[in-house]
């Protein structure tokens, strides 16, 4: 009898375990707030991970491509309808996540006859002024955390995610250049996928540098930049490692 509370709790706990198991091995994604914009990074094996949502909004996620696609499409539909019926300035990530994506993810997660979304993601909103940007870390169960500066990491293992994020926070600051930020983020990405220990036992910098370079060999590094200095309405600019001189 699924109506019995303890069975429901057990079912939800099982689903949490199931989703985490499905997300194991997913390639971590990251976003960093810099002085002139927001940098988003994902490393994929063919499936895209970094997407433009609206003029000042972007998404980077890991998980099942079909689920990322559903969320991406829902966010794009909502943003464009809002922009058309009101104004582009009225599209806000706070409302998009808080009133749209998060309740739907929570609903799917807790309705045990529905399939849960197998996703972990970061959504970014660029502001005109530094310090007012918004990064939202959105989880598969609909819970989310907001952050206005620094770095956000999304990975399948929460402990490693927290440690990698702390490590990157100590290295990446608003004045950090795009190239330096990407270099640090790729080193963190490599440490995460290789399950390297954080703290004092972290591999040396030369090891980390050669590590990510060999690990991305057959993969695609996807980079995007939400530019604060652009004069165009659409601030999303795809970047490549060669644009930054990193290959």
């Amino acid at each position: 009898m699924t109506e019995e509370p303890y069975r429901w709790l057990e079912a939800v706990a099982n689903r949490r375990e199931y989703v985490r198991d499905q997300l194991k091995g997913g390639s971590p994604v990251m976003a960093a707030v810099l002085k002139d914009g927001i940098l988003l990074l994902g490393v994929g094996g063919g499936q895209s991970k970094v997407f433009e949502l609206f003029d000042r909004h972007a998404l980077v996620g890991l998980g099942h491509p079909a689920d990322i696609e559903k969320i991406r499409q829902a966010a794009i539909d909502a943003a464009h309808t809002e922009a058309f019926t009101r104004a582009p300035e009225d599209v806000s990530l706070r409302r998009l996540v808080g009133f749209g994506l998060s309740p739907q993810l929570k609903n799917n997660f807790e309705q045990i006859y529905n399939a849960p979304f197998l996703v972990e993601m970061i959504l970014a909103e660029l502001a005109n002024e530094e310090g007012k940007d918004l990064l939202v870390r959105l989880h598969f169960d609909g819970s989310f955390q907001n952050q206005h500066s620094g770095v956000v990491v999304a990975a399948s293992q929460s402990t490693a995610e927290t440690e990698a994020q702390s490590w990157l926070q100590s290295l990446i600051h608003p004045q950090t250049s795009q190239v330096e930020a990407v270099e640090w983020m790729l080193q963190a990405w490599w440490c995460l996928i290789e399950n390297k220990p954080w703290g004092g036992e972290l591999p040396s910098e030369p090891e980390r540098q050669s590590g990510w370079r060999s690990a991305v060999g057959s993969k695609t590094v996807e980079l995007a930049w939400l530019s604060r200095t652009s004069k165009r309405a659409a601030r999303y600019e795809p970047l490549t490692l060669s644009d930054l001189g990193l290959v």
Partner: protein
Amino acid sequence: MSSMTPMAGDFLSLLASQKLSPVRTEMLSSGGPVQTQATTVFAFHFADGVIMAGDRRATAGNLIVTDKVDKIIEIDSTSLLAIAGVPATAFEMARVLQTSFEYYRRSQLQHLSLPAKVRAMARLLRENLSMTIQGIGVVAPLFAGLDQSVTPAKPQIYFYDPLGAHFETVDHATSGSGSGTIRSIMSFQEHYGNPKPSQMSLAEAVRFSLRLLMTAAEFDSATGGVNPGTHTFATIRVLRSTGIEIITSEQQAEYLARNTPAS
């Protein structure tokens, strides 16, 4: 999550699924309010691409409503629209196109092709048929876009009739109440000018455009024209294979001040 739109990437289908209408198509039984309208807009090929220009006046009957209207609108990074006709309808059409093109690009992860963009404008004009027949919502725009099926991408110009028929032009296109005056000049320049508009440099093309608007304003009270003395200039955009460039009032003043004749 919202269900897929009936036609993937189609913003008008998305609006329809949410019972939102992009254009007003009600039939009016009697005479409507006085409309703001009248214009001179044009586009022609020059040596580097396409230049599109327009005056900045909006009128209602014999009243000047404003001299600060931008009638050349950047629809996306590779498309320009010059609006002529009733602004209430024309600006709404531009907004629908802007959202539609960006919606398609973001949702489908590819650019809409130039023929599809041209037809999207035609579709809006067709859906505006009842307003056009009533004579209160007539729009006759010009469209310039990049054909990205060739390398390098090729700028092209299209013009429409108010019912939605669209035609590509090889040299120039004009629209609005002052267009008759300058059409003759452009045709003359194309046949007998030296340089021809298609051979002009950017400076020559901008100067030619400003002089066309000055001439149109002499014969059409609904065209705002250009007056360097009062720092009144036109809206000018350039579409090259690399993208769109805005020609500012300061640049227009500088090009006009260079006292070399266009022909």
